[in-house]
């Protein structure tokens, strides 16, 4: 048997801790518990999910705009933006809309259900580079979900930023998410403007397009400094962020100072399955957060 080639057990090799971790990270998921479920609208629920192991929970750090892969054993796995504040580490909040297999199953699970969490993955909104600037946070529809993490992060460091505007558009008032937090956001000296496409009974706010509100904001802020001291974070359907970003471009805001989050089908989050590719860019690695200049350079992005 002298010519028997030696089997290299990748699973057991005694490599330096770091290298070993990176290999085993691939299928590693933190076990986590759904500690609470809040229905937000008819189709969306907020899930509070806590990583079970205290050390893993503490060591779980992320930046606003990143996502996790959430797994329900035997049911499915998918990418979800982290909707909670980074200072809460592995005490996560995900806001999930029931649309398919796993998300509809999730709709029925109870508190205490154990799930798997891996990540965080992807790029983030560079709020750390926006310190000292005015920030425009613009969301359309479910886009408020990935936006909530940078909002919370900005609130927690409110004194470091200048004027902060949140402009949020939804189809109908009943589809607005996180209504219970609007007052709190306003208390942090944030201008919150909400607009809907279609009014419903009791709605007193404006009806129309998000770009109308944005126009007012731009007109009001159109001083020489606007382009130097403003950054924008825009989340929503492609058609919406294209209109918004084009409008901001006309207002002379540099494209590198506008950030959008793109959504694509994902099966790994790790640059391996190719399902998320735009042109040939991995959304899970180079995104989901891109600056608008990069988006314009991606074939088939919009």
């Amino acid at each position, binding site marked *: 048997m002298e010519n028997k*080639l030696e089997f290299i057990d990748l699973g057991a090799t005694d490599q330096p801790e770091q290298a070993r971790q990176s290999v085993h990270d691939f299928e590693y998921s933190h076990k986590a518990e759904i500690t609470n479920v809040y229905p937000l609208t008819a189709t969306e629920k907020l899930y509070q999910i806590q990583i079970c192991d205290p050390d893993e929970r503490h060591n779980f750090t992320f930046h606003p705009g990143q996502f996790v892969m959430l797994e329900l054993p035997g*049911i499915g796995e998918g990418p979800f933006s982290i909707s909670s504040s980074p200072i809460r580490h592995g005490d996560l909040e995900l806001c999930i809309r029931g*649309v398919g297999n796993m998300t509809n199953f999730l709709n029925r699970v109870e508190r205490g259900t154990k799930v*798997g969490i891996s990540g965080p993955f992807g790029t983030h909104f560079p709020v750390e580079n926006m310190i000292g600037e005015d920030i425009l946070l613009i969301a359309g529809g479910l886009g408020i979900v990935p936006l909530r993490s940078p909002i919370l992060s900005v609130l927690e460091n409110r004194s470091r930023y200048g004027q902060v505007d949140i402009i949020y558009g939804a189809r109908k008032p009943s589809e607005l998410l996180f209504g219970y937090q609007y007052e709190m956001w306003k208390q942090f000296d944030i201008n919150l403007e909400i607009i809907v496409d279609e009014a419903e009974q009791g709605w007193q706010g404006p009806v129309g397009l998000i770009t109308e509100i944005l126009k007012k904001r731009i007109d009001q802020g159109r001083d020489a400094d606007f382009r130097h001291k403003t950054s924008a974070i825009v989340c929503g359907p492609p058609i919406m962020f294209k209109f918004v970003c084009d409008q901001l471009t006309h207002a002379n805001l540099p494209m590198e100072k506008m950030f959008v989050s793109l959504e694509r089908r994902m099966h*790994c989050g790790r*640059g391996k399955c190719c399902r998320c590719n735009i042109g040939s860019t991995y959304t899970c690695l180079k995104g989901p957060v891109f600056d608008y200049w990069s988006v314009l350079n991606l074939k088939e992005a919009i």
Partner: protein
Amino acid sequence: MIFKVFPAEELAALYELLAVNPIVGPVLKGRDKKDNALYDFALTSGFADLALDYGQTMHSAKKFFLPHREDLCTFTLSDHDWDKHVDYGAYQHTVLFGLHPCDINALNKLDKVLMESVYPNPFYGAKRSNMFIVGHSCSPTPSCFCRSMASDSVIRGFDLFLTRLDDSYFAEVNSAKAYHLLEKIKSYHATDRDHKLFRHAVSEKNKKITAQVDTSDLTKILDMEFHADVWQEWGDKCLSCGTCANVCPTCYCYGVEEEVDLDLRHARKEKLLYSCNLVDFAEVAGGHNFRPESHTRLKYRYYHKHRGFVEAYEESLCVGCGRCGNACLADITVPEVIASVRGGDNNGK
């Protein structure tokens, strides 16, 4: 590199030395209607099984390092909890005997994405780390365009590479394991005469490569021709069957499915190799499809291979093995698609 030479009849002895390990190699599987031989990579049970004079196999050797179905993990479920078990699916060292340069180059390309990138894939890594590769020189078929893709020769990623000379083998020795192995058969260090014979053999081989792809400025041309009508024409022919990705040695994309066993006590997460030509490749829940038409998907496949990968690694993700063209029921071949897209150059004249 160390070059050694051994008499052709010693090859069987080399095989026997390695035969304590599983040996995968090209074998004759049958004949098509026109009586052409059909080859595939398979586990061999003796030296006689090896068909080293094969032109091209129908499938690549992918099933031995990127199986079409593979469990990413299994779960045991209890009432309120679960445990996850991960098995990388490699248990012993395997010999791949008789790979052509294109297929070894394909492995080297896969290594870049699957092992040398962020989040290395241990399922591939475990198999790749346990491969002993004996490459073998090829006799090009009419559909081979490896030379255009700089994959007609290989400089790394193997243990031993054999080039057939008249009555001997010229061996490029690329690992200590391979060196020790050659010590056990009748072999000697290559002489000037052998070097000459080797170069002659290579130039004779090159003469047989007729298919070509012009890759100059291809990344830019693909960008310029993103909206060219030819894509639509190819898309109309394409059946969106995914066969091209299936037989390709460098296609690695996949989907994931989870299922629970009937006893409700076990579940599995399975990885299934996929193809970007299949209709739901980029479809998301709720029904929106980012590439609904077949031409957008076909175009994407070419983009990934001939543009995106080049941007990332300065080489293409196609080795010019010609398998996709041979297997395609719609007769879509890489040289023709690229030539027609480049043909757009002349439209403006």
